């Protein structure tokens, strides 16, 4: 009978140190992410009022069934999808364009990076408050646009029209985050070896061909990263919509899921139903992330 001899290889030692280094983050995530997720999942199975001291009633999947039948919930899904698509796609395209523009500059690269990035430093609430002032009927929004379009006295109803209010929320988000994603693209662009472009130049490739056949394919991991982060950010949008409705905008066009969750929990005190909604949002986000990761693994890039 052969006796199993324990092996203390370098790999195992490394793995042990790996676990030690990862442990604080794991504990942090367990406390502040995993626990709330499981707690929300558990709470979503109960009829629980935020202020009640009585034990909540177990109602199984009733909260989910209610939501799937609720026109308000489906309106929130619509508002979230419209906002996400309307913001995520331009964010992805324009942040790439801005990154290429900045990288192509010989001078003022730092200035442009700071200029684009600065709105990302602001809190979402401050950004929304600034834009609320701009979107006031007597504010800068109407004044600027009327000056550019030579249309004095036109109220563009930034917050006072169901289509415009959706566009306004997208504009604020785009303004706030485009610089952030531009910086990520700049990092991605900088990591592409110059030797590839030099080789292409010898082969007679022009700038356009360089972009389509070198930059874009080699930028795929960055594009996937930006698309995942920006899509998740868009799905979680809250402060802009919240402050705009406080500022007088109609609720229904911009009642995104997070805002509906907030109203259901804080205004209506129905924490069980709000938890069910947040679990649905979590599943949607998980699904999108999985799909994007899956597609990114299809052909990984190595230089």
């Amino acid at each position: 009978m052969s006796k199993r001899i324990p092996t203390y290889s370098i790999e195992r030692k490394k793995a042990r140190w790996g676990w030690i280094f990862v442990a604080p983050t794991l504990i942090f995530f367990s406390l502040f992410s995993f626990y709330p997720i499981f707690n929300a999942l558990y709470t979503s199975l109960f009829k629980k009022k935020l202020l009640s001291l009585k034990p909540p009633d177990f109602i199984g999947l009733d909260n989910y069934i209610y939501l799937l039948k609720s026109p308000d919930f489906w309106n929130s899904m619509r508002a979230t999808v419209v906002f996400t698509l309307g913001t995520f796609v331009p964010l992805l395209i324009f942040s790439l364009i801005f990154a290429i523009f900045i990288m192509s500059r010989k001078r003022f690269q730092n200035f442009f990076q700071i200029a684009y990035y600065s709105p990302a430093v602001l809190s979402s609430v401050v950004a929304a408050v600034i834009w609320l002032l701009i979107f006031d009927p007597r504010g800068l929004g109407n004044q600027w646009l009327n000056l550019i379009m030579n249309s004095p006295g036109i109220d563009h109803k930034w917050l006072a029209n169901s289509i415009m209010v959706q566009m306004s929320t997208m504009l604020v988000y785009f303004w706030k985050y485009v610089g952030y994603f531009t910086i990520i693209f700049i990092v991605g662009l900088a990591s592409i070896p110059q030797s590839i472009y030099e080789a292409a130049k010898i082969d007679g490739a022009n700038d356009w061909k360089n972009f389509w056949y070198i930059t874009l394919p080699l930028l795929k991991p960055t594009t996937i990263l930006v698309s995942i982060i920006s899509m998740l950010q868009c799905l979680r949008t809250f402060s802009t919509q919240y402050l705009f409705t406080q500022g007088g905008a109609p609720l229904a066009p911009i009642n995104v899921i997070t805002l509906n969750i907030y109203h259901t929990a804080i205004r209506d005190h129905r924490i069980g139903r709000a938890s069910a909604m947040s679990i649905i949002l979590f599943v949607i986000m998980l699904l999108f992330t999985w799909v994007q990761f899956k597609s990114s693994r299809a052909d990984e890039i190595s230089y």
Partner: protein
Amino acid sequence: MKKLFTIFLFVLLLSMTVNAAADIEITFWTHEDPNRTEIENRYIEEFEQANPGVTIKRVTSGSTEIRELILTAFAAKKGPDIFNMSIEDEYAYIVNERLASVDFEAAGYPSLQAIYDAYISGVLDPATYKGQLYGLPLELTNWCIYLNKKVFRDAGLDPEKDYPKTWEEMVEVSDKIAIREGEILQRRGFDFRYPYHLVSTVPMVEQLGGKLISDDGKTAIVNDEAWFKFLKFMQEWGPSGKNLGSPTYTNARKLFNKDNNDMGMCLTGLYQQGRIRSDNPDFYNSGEWMVIPFPKFENAVKDVPAAYYGHYYMVNGQKPKENQQMAWKFVAYMLSHPEEYLAKVNIVQPTVELMNSETYKSMPYSGVFTDDMAKGHVVYYGENSAKIQSHIEEAIKSVMLAGVSPEDALKTLKRKVQEVLDEG
């Protein structure tokens, strides 16, 4: 040595226990009001001097944020000892049994009945639940219309004669006062207070014969015709109709105080006088403003002014008994200065004594407020009143801004409010 150590330990523990019993910290969360802060900070100092070992921590927040702060704090069982909000927001705390009933002895009254006797009839009813009293009023408020005489004259109107008595006249007068640069309103005649519909817009529906909830409490949005007329009126008021105002403009009462020739009238309470005085003393002393009653529709079937509402001081029922008693003692101490609250903050604490006092009667236009209050009723309050109010807000904004027809908005409103009632 061992004995000595035991005695020392015993004395140390005893002194710690005695100190712990004597030291009480009372947390007091309230909405921002600079005029109140000034006098209440003084009351805190006086109370702390008279009650050694007691510390009062007063924390202020905006009137919208405070609702969320208190709710989340209570949900986490970390609510303050004392707080105040409008009764529509406070009532859920009463029915969910999160509050301590008024300790009449700690508050310095010989009996509970003595408290009811000290206040004007009915004013404590919203804070009474299952025979227990859960709040003492910081203020009782109703809204009338404040009018800028200069703006009226500038529009060629005589403020004393041409002020609007009906909502139809309000439309006419506002149209005359309005100055537009194309579609953009540079000066408004009047505008509503959009988030506060239970106080000011439900009474307009009642004037037309409608009701929010039926008398048996089972049916929501009674009398479709009245609600339809009201929603139609609001649609006409908005930017897609006669373009007289909109929730997206800066709120009317903020502009009114500045007297910048951009707001003719606004809807607010007696307390606004204190705010005009502190924001713009020249305007306050100019005599160029006046107060008129809440208008009614020409074909009104009922004379209903804006509903009155109370802000009640309430005490957290989850705090230790001694905190509760001290909290009620402090609340009663603050409320023992109704004349100072009226003179410096312009808020009315509705005691029988104050309402009959010369101080109240000599307040500018207090008679207009008293007359309207006598005709009015208390605001609708219930566990879900905040939710109902936001459904009404949604309906109004949808017809004014989102292009929804009054018929469709009414259908949605009816469905949503009925669901609130059915769910309980």
